[in-house]
């Protein structure tokens, strides 16, 4: 068991080369807020990359930012805020759910774990924001991929692969992201006391409207308390729209027309509530395992009904279901997910459970073979987080 900390990219290369010589894999750790996410591994060594921190270039008028991979997200967001800009994928703070500090994660961790939050609905996922990167691969080489401009099809789009790879393909050292202007104002509207099916139908109607919602969530009665939304009856549908004062007024009016006959209230602290939704706050302070089901929106209600979780809620107009169910529900949940054309991830569970139950839904044989070949294309000796995603990957 050894713990290495590197100070810069040069030391990182040395560390990878040494690991290569010794055939000794390591766990890549930034600030460690999501170490309990992913398949449980028993990697003896850890590589602390948190020193790879700092913003390298922020070209606000180009809507691009470049930072070292372990730069704290909070630092990036604070800088973007000064210019009324934002990361569109709306990275959520999962730290507290895993018993870690709040607001402590890094940009590299957010990208590697796909921590997309509510606004992902409008602006796309982490992968849609990473324009290019530098990394060290399993051969101990520094290489770069992508570029620093929004529109680029030069060579393979390796940036997409790095997002959500859980650090299994290499150690990111620098990332370049596109950013979006932040609308001057936002409004979060709530429809109270709607049942599941009705609530999802309502959210889908708004999702299919041209008012560019940046958050569409459904909070059933069982999960409402931590969000302090007042009396929600059977459940609440939440929708956020954005714009300057006049356009925002127009959007709100348009939503009222669209949802005629529903009482549409405005909540005061909408931004905070949506951040809590991204962070899975319904499960804060509660023990127990958590699953996330990624399903086509129109299947959300039936999946929820079949899953029958005592506590759950939904983001992305029903495209993402957070479910409080034990790891042992794997077979049932995976069948439910697969039947809907989606998949289930064991989001939070004990290390034992995450060793015995596949955390990410397993792939068809041909797909799994391809995944292994791609892993080997970056990391032939399986030095980086081996097993964190699938067995051997």
């Amino acid at each position, binding site marked *: 068991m050894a713990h290495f900390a590197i100070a810069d990219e040069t030391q990182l290369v040395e560390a990878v080369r040494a690991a290569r010589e010794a055939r000794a894999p390591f766990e890549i750790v930034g600030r460690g807020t999501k170490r309990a996410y992913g398949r449980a591994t028993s990697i003896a060594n850890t590589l602390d990359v948190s020193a790879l921190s700092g913003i390298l270039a922020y070209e606000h008028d180009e809507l691009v930012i470049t930072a070292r991979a372990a730069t704290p997200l909070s630092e990036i967001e604070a800088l973007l805020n000064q210019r009324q800009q934002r990361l569109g994928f709306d990275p959520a703070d999962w730290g507290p759910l895993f018993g870690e500090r709040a607001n402590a994660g890094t940009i590299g961790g957010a990208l590697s774990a796909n921590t997309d939050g509510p606004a992902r609905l409008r602006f796309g996922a982490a992968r849609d924001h990473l324009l290019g990167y530098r990394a060290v691969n399993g051969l101990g080489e520094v290489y770069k991929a992508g*570029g620093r401009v929004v529109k680029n099809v030069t060579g393979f789009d*390796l940036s997409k692969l790095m997002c*959500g790879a859980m650090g299994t393909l290499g150690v990111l050292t620098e990332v370049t992201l596109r950013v979006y*202007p932040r609308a001057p104002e936002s409004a979060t509207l709530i429809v109270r006391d709607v049942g599941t099916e009705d609530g999802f139908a309502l959210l889908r109607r708004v999702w299919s409207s*041209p008012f560019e919602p940046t958050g569409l969530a459904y909070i059933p009665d069982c999960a409402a308390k931590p969000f302090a939304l007042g009396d929600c009856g059977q459940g609440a549908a939440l929708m956020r729209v954005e714009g300057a004062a006049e356009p925002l007024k127009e959007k709100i009016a348009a939503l009222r027309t669209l949802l005629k006959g529903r009482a549409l209230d405005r909540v005061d602290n909408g931004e905070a509530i949506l951040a809590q939704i991204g962070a899975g706050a319904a499960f804060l302070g509660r023990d127990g395992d958590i699953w996330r089901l990624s399903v086509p929106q129109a299947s959300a209600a039936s999946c929820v009904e079949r899953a029958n979780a005592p506590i759950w809620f939904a983001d992305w107009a029903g*495209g*993402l279901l957070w479910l409080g169910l034990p790891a042992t529900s794997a077979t049932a949940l995976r069948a439910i997910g697969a039947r809907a054309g989606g998949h289930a991830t064991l989001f939070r569970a004990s290390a034992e459970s995450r060793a015995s139950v596949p955390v990410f839904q397993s792939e068809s044989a041909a797909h799994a073979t391809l995944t292994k070949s791609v892993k080997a294309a970056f990391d032939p000796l399986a030095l980086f987080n081996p097993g964190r995603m699938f067995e051997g990957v």
Partner: protein
Amino acid sequence: MLFAPPDPDILARRGKILAGLRGILSDGVVSEPAGLAAFDGDALTAYRQAPLACVLPRTRDEVSALLRFASAEGIPVIPRGAGTSLSGGALPRADAILIGLGRMNRIVEIDLENRCVVAEPGVTNLAIGRAVEKDGFYYAPDPSSQIACTVGGNVAENSGGIHCLKYGITTNNLLGVELALPGGERVQLGGKTMQPGGLDLLGVVAGSEGLLGIVVEATLRILPKPPVTRTVMAAFRDVPCAGLCVANVIAAGIIPAAMEFMDRRCIDAVEDYCRPGYPRGAEGILLIELDGVEAEVTDAVAQIEDIARAAGAYEFRAAADEAERARLWAGRKAAFPAMGRLAPDMLCMDGTIPRGKLPEVLARMAELSERHGLGFCNVFHAGDGNLHPLIIFDVMKPGELARAEEFGAEILKLCVDVGGVLTGEHGVGVEKRDLMPLMFSDTDLAQQGRVKCAFDSASLLNPGKVFPMLSACVEQGHMHVTGGRVPYPNLPRF
């Protein structure tokens, strides 16, 4: 560029290969020279080469069977949609089977509830939009070639279009594909969900130029039509001023649905061709489209007018009605054919630069044009800095093609030098293959090459495209390419 000599062993087996293909497809094997001539290249017209055979499957099982056969026989395969690639992506080889996907042109499912369309690869880009327009939806990536180009080609080239500034290019609007791998097995990558599990293989398939697999089905995101759409035109007496206007609009936090530039030569050509009503005499115009709710669009138009006038616009007008709006865009979409009437041959470049560098790069391109003694015009997706200089030349005049290519390469080098890239939407293909070292080191390219090998270890899919190297799929093997020099210099190459 020289063509690689075909593998004599494959040519010698032609009869047997054709028989094998006919065993798989009862009709749809093209082998006679006249038939093959229809498939001997794409929209990079300077290069032509008929394939050994062309096959036109109707089903995904047939695609798999063809791939299985080709891989067992060790024959290269070139996927082809409509052949509108501008980078030679669909250029055949004499020893390769061309798989044309045009007959697989069914829309499989229109799923409005989940806001997506599932389509076979041969469906045209335009047909996707047409299929959902009556329900108030559209498909955002809209290449100018949209009446012809296919969904499969769009995925392979990761194509963009006028409306990609706000809504992203193909990859950002692609939810899933079914991919046939070189050995014939098929995998479903992504689907109708927002977050696929596992490694994002879908992400690397988009833009892989037919090198990783054949797309046999794609699931595409559709968007609700905005309630208000308004198009404005700003005219400038000076090209760099238009560039400044673009940079300032973006810097002001406005992301228009589209922001397109055309220079004087192009304005004149288009006016002669279809009279969209552009101001003759302007050195450059910008067409800017805003969409959203009424107040949003009104605000943005007012802000943009201020920015444009401050940057030197001498005329600024909004399309009065839908007919005028359509006319303004028809002119933009006709830019290629209109220029085509003026020039015997054109080379369309496709670099992207940071938007702030537009004034500088536009000025330097004019100098380069003079130095090379070749005319060019500029029509491009200004909002995302994606340049499309059209170099005008005549292939029949000795040395002009080479000079045009040299001029083009210098433009792309300039793009890379100012922090941009070689291609924003047309792909590398054969055209920019040997320029890849301008942007990527040996190590960078070797990493991409290993991903190719992970999908296609025998290098049978679209070989000779994208990479300036003869790749060998060994674990750590990578070849050195420095300063444009290539390994095995004695081997003839494209």
